[in-house]
């Protein structure tokens, strides 16, 4: 049985969230919030330190400019906060946080993860149009009128599998429930009771089934259209090597990227001899290697937030490739990124008896 309490409604869902935030800060439950705020018509994660900042909160806006997990990574690199920080995240952000915690890149001391239900987000252009149209960005169903991002269309996690506290609104007929999901979350609130999530569970089940069929469509498309030597080279060749996809990716965990290092630096003559052996050599070089390496590094932990796709200036269908490869790798290890902080990342562990089909030895 889910445990928690309902937030008193004060008008729209957005208003209810704002009054909840106000309560959190006023009662000293939390000292600071990191939550999506309105920044001149757009939405960005921002710190809210006092009640007067709460009016900027736009937590439910269907736009995700960056994956906030990356911000927490930067924030706690030297030391975690000394004050109680509540972080309001979308499920894909919360799942990325779990992966980064396991990679020792986020320290959750004094950080409380509030995961909000998410029906999906729109891209930059979509959100601009939404604002221009004067639509209410905090109406959860509005997102379907402006076209979900590819990543959201096939997202199987409208609710995060892990959080300290969940902010739930899907399937609750306009009310908002605060579900306590961890011991850390329990410390924050008194008056916790049982929540009736029967209708919510049904709504979620239908939603996820829809998403599963969308995911199947995308994987089918990748298998048919984005596969094979010719095709992979063709679709990745517009890459200009800007590495935007790498810098926005929350999972891309190397402290210093191999491709920013001098490891692959070569003498001019070596480039020329490579060009000679190929016939011609496209510059900047190693872009295909860059993407394949990134897939390799990211695949076990990819949360499919699709930020890479949004950041690509050349519109390379990179999300489909990452989704397809990471799905296969995660299925291989029966691993789901973001499911739990305790579960080991596949590459950090092994079993003595596995993958018999890829290895060979003549004598035992």
């Amino acid at each position, binding site marked *: 049985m889910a445990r928690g309490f309902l937030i008193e409604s004060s008008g729209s869902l957005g208003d209810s969230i704002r009054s909840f935030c106000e309560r959190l800060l006023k009662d000293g439950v939390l000292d600071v919030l990191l939550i999506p705020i309105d920044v001149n018509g757009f939405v960005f994660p921002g710190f809210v330190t006092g009640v007067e900042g709460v009016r900027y909160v736009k937590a439910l806006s269907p736009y995700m400019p960056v994956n906030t997990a990356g911000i927490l990574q930067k924030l706690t690199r030297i030391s975690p906060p000394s004050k109680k920080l509540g972080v309001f995240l979308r499920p894909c952000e919360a799942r990325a946080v779990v992966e980064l915690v396991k990679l020792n890149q986020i320290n959750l001391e004094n950080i409380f993860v509030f995961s909000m239900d998410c029906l999906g987000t729109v891209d930059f252009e979509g959100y601009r149009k939404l604002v221009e149209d004067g639509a209410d960005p905090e109406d959860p169903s509005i997102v379907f009128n402006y076209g979900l991002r590819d990543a959201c269309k096939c997202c199987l996690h409208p609710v995060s599998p892990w959080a300290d506290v969940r902010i739930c609104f899907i399937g609750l007929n306009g009310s908002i429930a605060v579900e306590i999901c961890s011991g850390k979350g329990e410390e924050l609130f008194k008056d916790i009771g049982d929540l009736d999530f029967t209708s919510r569970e049904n709504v979620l089940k239908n939603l996820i089934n829809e998403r599963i069929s969308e995911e199947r469509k995308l994987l089918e498309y990748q298998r048919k259209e984005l596969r094979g030597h010719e*095709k992979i080279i063709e679709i990745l060749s517009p890459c200009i090597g800007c590495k935007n996809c790498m810098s926005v990716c929350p999972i891309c965990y190397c402290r210093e990227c191999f491709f920013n290092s001098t490891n692959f630096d070569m003498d001019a003559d070596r480039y020329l001899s490579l060009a000679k052996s190929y016939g011609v050599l496209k510059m900047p070089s190693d872009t*295909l290697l860059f993407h*394949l390496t990134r897939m390799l590094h990211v*695949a*076990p932990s990819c949360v499919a937030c699709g930020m890479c796709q949004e950041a690509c200036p050349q519109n390379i269908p990179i999300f489909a490739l990452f989704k397809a490869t990471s799905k296969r790798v995660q299925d291989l290890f029966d691993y789901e990124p973001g499911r739990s902080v305790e579960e080991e990342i596949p*590459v950090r562990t092994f079993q003595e008896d596995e993958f018999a089909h*890829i*290895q060979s030895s003549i004598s035992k």
Partner: protein
Amino acid sequence: MDMKIIGFFCHWCTSTAADLAGTIREKYPSSIKPIRVMCTGSIDPIYILDAFLKGADGVWIGGCKPGECHYVNGNFKARRRIAIVKEILDVLGLDPDRIYLTWISASEGPQFAEWARRIDREIKEKGKNPIFGKIVS
């Protein structure tokens, strides 16, 4: 046709086996280009991918038998990484079967030569790396 097969061989086993194959005058194809590494667990898969993208027709990783790793469990870790590389190449349709992973211990010179001949033959049957002659980068 001249094939290029890059071999990453563990110092403690397959590399020694390759040496032994030479010492006992077992012939193995010159398409195999051995690179000695300290452990299969020390091979960053990026070099496997790099070999393919720079025109290698096959990559052969040779390590100690499971349970016999000089560094306790390097070969188990390598096996997982190579499983991931193979899955990804399979999803992208980039011919994962050009990657070989074998366990050959230091005393198995003849077995090393046998594998070398077999891998050379299988790669020849597959033909040149399809990436060859395309504008890649």
